[in-house]
Each structure stands twice: as C-alpha cells, then as structure tokens.
C-alpha cells in the first residue's frame, strides 16, 4: 500500500488512532451538544449564561493546563480515578476512553456554539406550525429543527472533528503518548520534530494538511450546495 511506503507502522497506528478518536468524539459531541445547544437556544433561564460560560471555558484555558487538571481528575489519585477503582474499573487516564473524554470536553464549545446559533435562527413560527400539525416535541426537533439547522450541524461536525484531529496538549497530558494506543498524529509529528527527524515530520504534516484540506473542502462544498439550494 502506498501509505506504508511513506509512513512507519507507528505513524500509521497514530493516524488510525487519530481518525478513530476524532470520529468517536464527534459522534458523542453531537449526542451531547445538540440537546445542550437546543436548551441554550430556547431557555430564558438565568442559568443559561452560566452554562454558556462553562461550555466556552475550554476555549480560554490552554490545552496543556486543561490536560494537566484532567490528568489530576482522571488519574489514579484523582476523584474520578478513585471512583473508577472503587467501581473495580481501571483509571481512565492513559486509555483511549480517557482520550475520548478529554477530547469531548475540549471540543465541546466547537459543537455547541454553531448549533446554538443555527437553532436560534430558526423561526419560532416553523415550530408552531409543526405543533399544530400534530408533531410532538422530539418529532419537531428531528423533522424541523435538524433540517433547518443543517448548515449549523455541518459546521459543528467539521469544527468538532477538526479540532479533535488538531488537539495536542490535552491528548499529550492525559493520553501519555503510547504508540498504538494513545499516540495521535499531532503528537507523532511533534515527536519527529523533537527527534530532529524533519523528513518524516514534513511527510506527516504535509499528509495531514492535504487530508484536512480535502476534508474541509468536501464539507464546505456540500454545505454550500445545500445553502444555495435552500436560497433558490
């Protein structure tokens, strides 16, 4: 295979881990983020601003710092780690599951914010009409809100996926950079740089660049076509 001529088995494993992580994280983010964003877009509760600020917090905290505190929380001595071992489970830090949890925290605002904007832009009239046509709340959400917020969903998916692929600090801290398990592409590139193996760093970075750009191009094309159709 072509990839393997350029990439070492470790690099390939890192690529696989990265894609798996980004995919799982995005799926979980949509499941968690969509209801949260919907609540934020509709509520008049005072708690709203607090939740909004909490969601945005990972943006403002340096990833390595966030990673450090997640490590303290998820590690063997941390509260979550202690809870896990009380339940007879291993610690979450340094496992793929731990990475997923960290990534979900880290990329949450990237999914919630575009969804919230898209939801807020939906005419309340559309939902009223759906209600008078006999659609229950969940039905209204899937039959009206989701299609109308489609550009928002696409943006959320791209941002969530992309940001997880690009994440570094959090993964390094709570993942432990274990090849085949928690070593992701961003760290593999960085390691090559650190080890002064510039050639392999360039190949990996170049590959990531081309791949990312292609992915983004595809998503934006679809999104753009959708928007054009909606406008015509």
């Amino acid at each position, binding site marked *: 295979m072509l990839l393997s001529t350029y990439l070492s088995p470790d690099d390939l494993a890192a690529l696989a881990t990265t894609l798996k992580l980004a995919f799982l994280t995005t799926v979980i983010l949509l499941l968690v983020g969509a209801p949260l964003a919907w609540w934020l877009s509709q509520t008049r509760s005072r708690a709203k601003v607090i939740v909004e600020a909490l969601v945005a917090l990972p943006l403002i905290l340096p990833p390595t710092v966030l990673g450090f505190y997640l490590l303290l929380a998820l590690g063997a001595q941390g509260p979550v780690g202690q809870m896990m071992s009380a339940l007879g489970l291993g*610690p979450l830090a340094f496992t793929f599951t731990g990475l997923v949890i960290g990534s979900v925290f880290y990329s949450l605002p990237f999914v919630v914010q575009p969804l919230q904007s898209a939801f807020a832009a939906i005419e309340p009239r559309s939902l009223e009409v759906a209600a008078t046509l006999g659609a229950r709340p969940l039905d209204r959400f899937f039959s009206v809100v989701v299609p109308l917020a489609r550009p928002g969903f696409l943006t959320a998916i791209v941002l969530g996926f992309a940001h997880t692929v690009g994440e570094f600090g959090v993964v390094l801290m709570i993942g432990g950079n274990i090849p085949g398990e928690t070593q992701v592409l961003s760290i593999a590139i960085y390691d090559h740089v650190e*080890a*002064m193996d510039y050639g392999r760093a360039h190949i990996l970075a170049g590959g990531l660049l081309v791949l990312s750009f292609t992915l983004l191009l595809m998503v934006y094309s679809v999104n753009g076509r959708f928007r054009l159709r909606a406008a015509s």
Partner: protein
Amino acid sequence: DKVRVAVASNFLATAKQLAQDFQTRTPHQLALSAASSGKFYAQIRQGAPYDLFLSADAERPQRLFREGVGNKPPVTYAIGQLVLWHPEASQAVDQTSLEQLSHQRLALANPRVAPYGLAAQQLLQQMGLWQKLQAGLVRGENVSQAFHYVRSGNVDMGLVALSQVKTMAIPEAQWWQVPAERYTPIEQQALLIQDNAPAQAVWQYLQSPEARAIIQHNGYALANIGE
C-alpha cells in the same frame, strides 16, 4: 512482550536506535513514548502505565523513587554534554563567541524546566554574561526547541546538546563543546517502574556495553557503572 518506555524528548532519537538494537537481541518489543520529563513526572504519579522512565535529569526519577515508585534506585544512563552552536561562524567557535555577543540572540532551553537550560545558565553566570545577555536570550521549552530556533535561522547561536549536533552531523567548525567542569553534570537517570521480566531485560540492556556504545556514539558521556 511489550515494554512501555517513557523517554525524555531529547533522548528520543538515541532511544530509537537502542530499541532497534534491543529488539534484534530479545523477543521483547519497545513502545517509546516521548514527552518532557516534567510531564512524565506528573503522569507517573497519576499511575501512567510505563514500565521504564528515561528522564532528562536526575531530580525527577529521584523524587519519584522517594515517593515510592519503583523498588530499585534510579541509575544514570547518560550524561548530557552542552555545546555552543553558531552556524554562521566566521571564525572558530569557542567561549569568545559568547563574550562577543552583543545584540544577537542566543537560544537556550528554559533553565526552570530543562536540565540543558540549567547547564547553559550556569555557564553564562560563571562567565559573568547572564545579566548582560538577558534581553537577547530566547528560551525554548526544551533543548530541542533551542536547537530548532538556531536551525531555522531565527537565532544566531544556541547552547544545545552534543547529541543534537552529532545526530544532525553539524560540521565541527560550527560548534564548541563546553568543558564539562563549567556546569553541573547533566545526569540523565532511568527509573524502573514495573519490575517485570521484559522491563528487567530493558533495564539490563541499558547498562550493557552494546547500549553504552550507542549512547556514547550519540554524544553523551557515561557514568561509571555501579556508581
């Protein structure tokens, strides 16, 4: 079996060579994880699943050992050597190159977190240049960053590691190895975290003549065994 080794970033290139050699000799596989020593310290305290820790310094393995990690005291597996690198040098590089520095910038590793940085600081302090050069000092997070700063042409000179200039085959005319007595030795210590057989094998290998030859070849000095 797979042995997970936490390797300080500056030793990663050497560790890869060691791993290759080791894997030809034993059925065991090495999984090398690279990061800064400070990060590994925090991670190992939180139960990170490494079998062996190759630190960039002595302090962190010692501290971990005192805190109950591992049941053998850490050993020094390599001693880092500081060099002054000046790629554009028009004359021989030596300590006068540092003395003549005025507005040019000098890269070094951050003394607070990196042993090479601390060694660089000691050298400059001893030469009475530390205060004078403050404004022109560019601190990398670790010694490899200091190296990139010089290599990318953003900084004129850097206090970097001998292992780096060797790995990159930098012509000898461009660098000056700082005499070892000008700074506290950069002792890099290893800590055996898990006392299982494969990890033991790596631990043994690390102190074998074959391994010591590779380490030395990569620009490190060696401690006397059994010290």
